[in-house]
């Protein structure tokens, strides 16, 4: 902007926004009003974009997105296949606001919903949210309107509302994007909710692994206070409400509502027995309403557009949209917002562009460590809470990890069990010891030490842990194991009986070798190998000494010719 002549500066307005969702192509620049979409922009492109496209509407071809199927360049954001099937009622607003400027949010109609809500009775607000059919977006899918009603009816003159921003599911970053990109929408939702429930104090509990989200929500609260949208006598209504920001300290279990409450209270994040539910007895033993970031962000839209508008999107039992993080072995990595009921196939292929390098799709893991792996045969599954549970998984917070033929499903079970073993609070025996034992058995299987009876033992253990654990972490810990056993049982058998890892992942069961025809003897693998396991002369095909090879994969990472074979 500094290099532009002054006359031009009044014609171009530059806004730094939050995430546009198409992470694979970022950094993005979008020029409005047409929505000209540029991808993988570098600092040196900035001058050209402003002078040529913004001022003269000249398109810079090399910055355009190329459709992988037609090989044609696409100019406008709305025509890009990644965006076409989405319904971005929440994420579209990320593109329109600078999250550090509350005025941007006001300019697009922000806080109109609050203004309307404060002139409506709290009962009517709760009825509205109930009518919308909104269900909690954190994973459990409990009806939000009902949750609010229960909390509002609880006895006590001191109540709390909490925003659960402890987005711990690996691979899920929807909440991060909303908090970083449009924090005012979450605040507005919380104020409306607090008003409806009768609370005057709220907390946003953000994981400390999200420093930018912490920064932006903290600034947003400050700005909302300055504008009289938080604090005393909000918009002259007589309603008081304050929000405090609390940072997590690195504990996955604090995403569970009672553990989160313990953490705010300054204690170890150990979940509590339910009942009592937080709506009746939560933070400091007072009635507390906790909702997820995405749930709160939906509230202003429901109040502004009406519950019928919201319930018109989605299916009979699952209303509205859901944001998913589409990651892993997928071409179009990013955040996708789709109406409930869309199929997995549409998300993975129409929106996601299919598997990188045209590899074969194997499974999609949903619901984080509490979820399961869904195989190819079930790709026509509609995305709703009930269908995913029937398939052995859960919606969860929206993480969607795509896996291909090179992913070992036994290793995936091991990965999640390892994760949960470390993150278990340790309070109850089934979770603490049950997960540990399941992990030990699966590790043995991946190392070629598995026995046939391990499968039935795993099933027994999984069911016991599921049925007897105190909280959601333990109760759903068995899902990754049970779903991989159900749909990929043959991989377990291969590891146990044949001592083979078909996907070529489990180090104890694979062998590395160099493909003579591809190796040109550059010596890179030999240089980087820390075990002296690669031998060969310069410019002649090298070979791997199996006895020394620890299958660390450094040779694969260093080879530019794809000459390492794994079997």
């Amino acid at each position, binding site marked *: 902007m500094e290099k532009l002549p002054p006359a031009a500066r009044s014609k171009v307005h530059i806004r730094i926004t939050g995430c546009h969702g198409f992470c694979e192509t970022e950094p993005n620049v979008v020029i409005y009003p047409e929505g000209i979409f540029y991808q993988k922009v570098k600092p040196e492109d900035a001058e050209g974009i402003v002078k040529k496209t913004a001022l003269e509407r000249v398109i810079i071809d090399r910055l355009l997105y190329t459709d992988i199927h037609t090989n044609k360049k696409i100019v406008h954001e709305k025509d890009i296949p990644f965006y076409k099937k989405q319904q971005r009622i929440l994420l579209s607003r990320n593109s329109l606001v600078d999250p550090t400027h509350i005025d941007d949010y006001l300019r697009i109609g922000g806080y109109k919903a609050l203004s309307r809500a404060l002139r409506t009775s709290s009962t009517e607000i709760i009825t509205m949210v109930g009518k919308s059919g909104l269900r909690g977006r954190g994973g459990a899918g409990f009806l939000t309107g009902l949750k609010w009603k229960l909390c509002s009816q609880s006895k006590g003159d001191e109540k709390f509302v909490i925003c659960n921003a402890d987005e711990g599911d*690996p691979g899920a970053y929807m909440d991060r994007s909303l908090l970083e990109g449009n924090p005012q929408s979450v605040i507005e939702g919380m104020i409306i909710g607090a008003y409806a429930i009768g609370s005057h104090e709220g907390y946003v509990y953000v994981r400390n692994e999200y420093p930018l989200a912490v920064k932006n929500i903290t600034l947003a609260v400050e700005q909302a206070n300055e504008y009289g949208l938080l604090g005393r006598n909000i918009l002259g209504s007589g309603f008081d409400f304050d929000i405090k920001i609390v940072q997590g*300290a690195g*504990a996955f279990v604090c995403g569970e509502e009672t553990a989160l409450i313990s953490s705010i209270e300054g204690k170890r994040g150990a979940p509590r027995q339910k009942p009592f539910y937080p709506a009746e007895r939560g933070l400091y033993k007072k009635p507390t309403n906790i909702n997820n970031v995405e749930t709160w962000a939906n509230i202003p839209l429901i109040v502004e557009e009406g519950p019928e508008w919201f319930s018109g999107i989605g299916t009979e039992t699952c209303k509205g949209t859901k944001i998913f993080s589409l990651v*892993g072995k997928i071409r179009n990595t990013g955040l996708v917002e789709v109406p409930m009921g869309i199929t997995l196939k549409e998300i993975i292929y129409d929106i996601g562009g299919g598997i990188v390098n045209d590899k074969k799709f194997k499974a999609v893991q949903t619901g984080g460590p509490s979820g399961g792996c869904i195989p190819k045969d079930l790709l026509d599954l509609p995305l709703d809470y009930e269908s995913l549970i029937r398939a052995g998984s859960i919606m969860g917070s929206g993480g969607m990890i795509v896996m291909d033929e090179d992913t070992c499903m036994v290793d995936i079970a091991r990965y999640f069990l390892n994760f949960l073993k470390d993150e278990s609070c340790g309070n109850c025996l089934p979770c603490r010891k049950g997960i540990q034992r399941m992990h030990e058995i699966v590790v043995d299987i991946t190392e070629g030490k598995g026995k046939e009876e391990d499968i039935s033992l795993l099933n027994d253990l999984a069911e016991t842990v599921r049925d007897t654990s105190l909280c959601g972490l333990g109760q759903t810990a068995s899902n990754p194991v049970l779903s991989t056993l159900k749909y990929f049982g043959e991989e377990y058998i291969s590891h146990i009986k044949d001592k083979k890892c078909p996907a070529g992942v489990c180090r104890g069961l694979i062998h590395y070798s160099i493909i003579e025809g591809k190796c040109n003897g550059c010596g890179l693998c030999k240089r980087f190998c820390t075990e002296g396991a690669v031998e060969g002369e310069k410019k002649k095909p090298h070979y791997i000494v199996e006895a020394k090879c620890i299958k660390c994969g450094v040779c694969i990472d260093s080879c530019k010719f794809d000459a390492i074979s794994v079997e």
Partner: protein
Amino acid sequence: MIDTDIAKDVKRYTKMYGGSLIAILQGIQGKYRYIPEDAIRIVSKKLNLPLIDVYGVITFYNSFSLKPIGKYLTTVCLGTACHVRGGKRIVDALSRNLEINPGETTKDLRVTLQTVNCLGCCAIGPIVVINGEYHGQMNSVKAVSLLKKIQETGDEKITIARRARGAQKKNIEKRGS
């Protein structure tokens, strides 16, 4: 003998954060790069909490450390998306190179190696964070090389050459783990 600097800092954080134990501990961890024993005793006294409760909170949460963090805090993301893209290989390579396990610090206190369960940057995974600087699309070779360069130059904003990125894109498409 209680360290007076620590005592002053605990007093300051208590004023800033009220009775919030975790926030006070976060302040101490941020300044001292660990929680010194003196701090545990002072906080316990100041907040009128049993020592074991304070110790229990410190050892429960991953972001607190009872031992000093090294000069270069090196964190490898092991979220599921980074895992399927080969995150474990990176941890193992760094672990072998530094001769420490994840969670440990080199004897000279230069490098602490940690893992984290998802930073939410899956599109550019696998990720390695060194003293708060994010490095995406890493692999085992690049991670070791990057850490070495950063230690040699002291420049934490250094990045790995563009040429290597092309190879890495291909590597993401190869077998992970």
